[in-house]
């Protein structure tokens, strides 16, 4: 029997930890990948993920279903990421991934893809993560929520607490910066596009 998030939340609020654990199983990976892409560190992303669910559990009594459970946990995780970056005054660290999920995006067929293809993909993925780390955290967050979590502009605006137009602007500027940096890093196959005037300077510096 597969219960909805709302049903599980109601059960968990009544003290059923098993119901809450089912929510954790359902949402821990998206929350972890969100934290990992924002922070760039596996260990800290794991901590943030765990803390986000703990806070959610503690706050269940106050959660009246005004938003979806997933949006609520996303918001908690994003706030934790922001606090982490602010408190630690650290820049996003580009950490080479030791492993990656080929099926995450559903675009790779593990049977037909050769090992050489995998290596090429890994190299390119590292290049992308390196360039993403140079973006300002606001732009990076918007791109991550849009590209890797498939949220709508409106959902992103509610999550990060900014107007809809700001979300679009951040997305456009972030993608433009990415395009420029990826082209500079020698990545082939990128269209030149139009030169964007007055790029905002990245506020996140690589360590």
């Amino acid at each position, binding site marked *: 029997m597969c219960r909805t998030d709302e049903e599980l939340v109601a059960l968990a609020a009544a003290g059923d930890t098993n119901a809450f654990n089912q929510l954790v199983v359902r949402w821990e990976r998206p929350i972890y990948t969100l934290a990992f892409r924002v922070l760039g560190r596996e260990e800290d992303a794991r901590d943030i993920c765990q803390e986000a669910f703990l806070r959610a559990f503690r706050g269940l009594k106050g959660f009246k279903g005004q938003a979806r459970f997933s949006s609520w946990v996303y918001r908690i995780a994003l706030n934790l990421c922001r606090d982490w970056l602010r408190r630690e005054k650290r820049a996003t660290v580009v950490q080479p991934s030791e492993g990656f999920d*080929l099926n995450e995006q559903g675009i790779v067929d593990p049977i037909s893809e050769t090992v050489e293809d995998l*290596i090429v993909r890994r190299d390119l993925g590292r290049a992308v993560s390196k360039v993403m780390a140079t973006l300002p955290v606001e732009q990076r967050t918007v791109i991550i929520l849009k*590209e890797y979590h498939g949220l709508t502009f409106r959902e992103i605006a509610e999550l990060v607490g900014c107007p809809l137009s700001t979300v679009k602007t951040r997305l456009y500027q972030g993608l433009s910066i990415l395009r420029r940096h990826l082209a500079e890093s020698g*990545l082939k196959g990128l269209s030149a596009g139009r030169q964007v005037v007055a790029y905002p300077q990245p506020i996140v510096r690589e360590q």
Partner: protein
Amino acid sequence: MDSTQACTEGFQESLVAYLYDECDKTERERVTIHVARCAACAGELEALRSVRGVLDLWEAPEPTLGFRLVADRDRLAPWWRRMLEPSWGLAAAAGLVLVVAVAIVSVEVRFDPNGVVLRMGWEDRSATSVSTSLEPADPMTGVSVDGRVPWHADLDRLEDELRDVFTREFLPASVTSAEADRSALLLEIQRLIEESERRQQQEVAVWFTEFAREFDMQRRADQQRFQQDLGALEGVTDYLVRVSQR
């Protein structure tokens, strides 16, 4: 729409909305018409699309998560529920039965010159008292004068009530749903294990191939350096031969 008008900063938002297909029909038509006429914006749209394609390559590592909440039942459950925990509940129930039984049969032990007197029951004491010499009275002596056994029915009723309480408290009503949840969880765990195994196999294959590639690159570099050194040595040898022939 004039191309110059369209290519303002405000148009960037429309372009992004068009890129992610999150615009209404009017805006979509407006952007489509403009992009068909404006080469700069068409190029920009194509560039943004290609960046999106590259972003797909960044994959997050597979985490080892699996943390779960464990209920601290002593803290979460109310006191009366804690008292109904199996160990506490059974002890309390046994004590309760004893107290009730003693109360019902009204056991009275008295020492007198004739010996130990054990009296039970709430009826006429003289009728139910038995005097023995250190011999316990037969429990059935609690029978009243009119032959009734008043505490048997009470004990049966108490037993039924206790059974009801235990059935309610210790056998959850939603056994079926709990089992279904557990089986769903087990399936999920099994899926995760299989995924993890497959990923590990891929990782090993990738690692070996990378190692072979690096080894091959190193071998080629060494070979090249060796040939260069050999060439230099040959040059020196030729020079020495020529010098010696002079």
